[in-house]
């Protein structure tokens, strides 16, 4: 069995060496496409991770109509907390709000009566829930329509749109490169099959099994894909280090969390290997010489 394996692996390695240029082209394209795909994916995950902390920062304020009773206030608090997408709702009594305002700006507030109504500070679970929560709050008769619901609507939309653009752009660019890499692997294997027509014919003449004839080409595709994936992981690791150093030169306190190099090699290498297997399988199936 081992002897058999060494024969087919040896055949695959010989073909990889023989078609050095095509191998290089296929591996480097897989590497670049997986680098972009992995890099964009990684950045997207980080951005989403960060975005999930944003809703707490972009809180909403609502004010109640003047003269709302305590019983209605507690009833309203319960109703607000039940609105889908609401993470928390804290009552801000008008007295406390006025005290704070006086502390913060004593010159302006001096001699004035408290103009504040009772209100709520509301945080949402996800950015995209902002509009829906605001609409449901506006629909409550106890909420004062003037000023209504106060929140950073535009900023929330901007961040949400930015994430969407990043997701689609990443998918399109990396998808196109991934497709190109597949075509290159496909062509590299077809070229190998053409180069090795004589060996294939000899194998067929002496009765080599279909697997013996085909497996070296599949191994070749898997190796190309895996190498591309591994290089992509190394490129990501390098990019992260360069970016980290850049942040240090700016003397900021920002720092990136550690890059999961081992995981990246495994994941991207695995993805590349599977992709290489699929592309080489298609190439073998489309070439009657290897049948």
């Amino acid at each position, binding site marked *: 069995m081992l*002897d*058999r394996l060494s*024969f087919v692996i040896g055949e695959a390695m010989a073909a990889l060496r023989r078609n050095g240029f095509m191998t290089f082209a296929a591996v480097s394209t897989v590497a670049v496409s997986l680098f972009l795909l992995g890099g964009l994916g990684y950045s997207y995950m980080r951005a989403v991770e960060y975005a999930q902390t944003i809703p707490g920062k972009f809180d909403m304020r609502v004010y109640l109509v003047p003269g709302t009773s305590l019983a209605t206030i507690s009833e309203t608090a319960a109703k607000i907390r039940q609105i889908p997408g609401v993470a928390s709702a804290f009552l801000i009594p008008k007295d406390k709000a006025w005290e704070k305002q006086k502390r913060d700006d004593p010159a302006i507030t001096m001699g004035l009566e408290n103009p504040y109504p009772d209100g709520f500070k509301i945080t949402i679970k996800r950015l995209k829930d902002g509009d829906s929560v605001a609409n449901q709050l506006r629909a409550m008769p106890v909420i004062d329509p003037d000023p209504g619901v106060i929140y950073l609507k535009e900023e929330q939309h901007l961040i949400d749109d930015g994430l969407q653009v990043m997701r689609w752009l990443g998918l399109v660019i990396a998808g196109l490169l991934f497709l190109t890499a597949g075509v290159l692997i496909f062509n590299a294997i077809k070229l190998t099959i053409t180069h090795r027509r*004589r*060996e294939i*014919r*000899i*194998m*067929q*003449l*002496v*009765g*080599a*099994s*279909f697997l*013996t004839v085909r497996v070296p080409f599949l191994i070749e595709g898997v190796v190309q894909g895996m190498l591309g994936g591994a290089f992509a992981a190394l490129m990501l690791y390098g990019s992260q280090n360069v970016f980290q150093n850049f942040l240090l030169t700016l003397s900021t306190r920002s720092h990136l969390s550690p890059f999961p190099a081992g995981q990246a090699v495994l994941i991207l290498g695995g993805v590349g290997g599977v992709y290489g297997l699929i592309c080489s399988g298609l190439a073998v199936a489309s070439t009657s010489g290897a*049948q």
Partner: protein
Amino acid sequence: MSEALSPYIEFKDVQVEYPGRVTGLHDVSLRVKKGDFVFFVGKTGAGKSTLIKLLTREVKQTKGTVILHGRDLGQLRDREIPALRREMGIVPQDFALLPRKRVWENVAYAMRAVGHTRSEVRKKVPDILDQVNIGQRADAFPHQLSGGEQQRVAIARALINNPPLLLADEPTGNLDPDHSWEIMELLKSLNLKGTTVLVASHDMMVIHRMGRRIVTLDGGHVVSDSETAAPVLPSEEPTPDA
């Protein structure tokens, strides 16, 4: 029918049509006994190579039956073809040698491809090369060999599975008369050891000298069989290879 009386190879009303309605064979019926030495002769396109390819299952008949050692080859599934080919030795006209491999490596490569281990290869290759009298050139590359020597290597490679049947398609097509005769002598000696040998050829001079069974084909029909009647041989005019 007992095994002793049943033919080793039988073509029954075989018809082969290639794509584009080109007919390769027309209602061919033939029987070959175990241990026979048969020449298929005829002009280009007569159908002699098609007969060989039917046995290797490179071609499948459109009608009729091809039987090898009691097995209907038309019923074979694609994945059974490699096993079929291991029961026979195939000698192509163009030798099909790997130019960057030495003589012994060419034979070893084929053995490795069919699953022989390295130690089996080391043990068996010298024997096979000696069997076809090319052992002394084991370390030579194909381009350093004469045409006859290259054909010997191709025959050596065909013998790696100890086949009871040897199929040769124009084995002397690229050789001068002396080397052609050398190859025929080699095939004769293998036949004397019990191997059934089928040869497609148009090398009439050598075929006459061999004095073996001759099946003549023309336009896809068997026009004569020396086993049943005097052969009707094709004209001696030079023809390109089939």
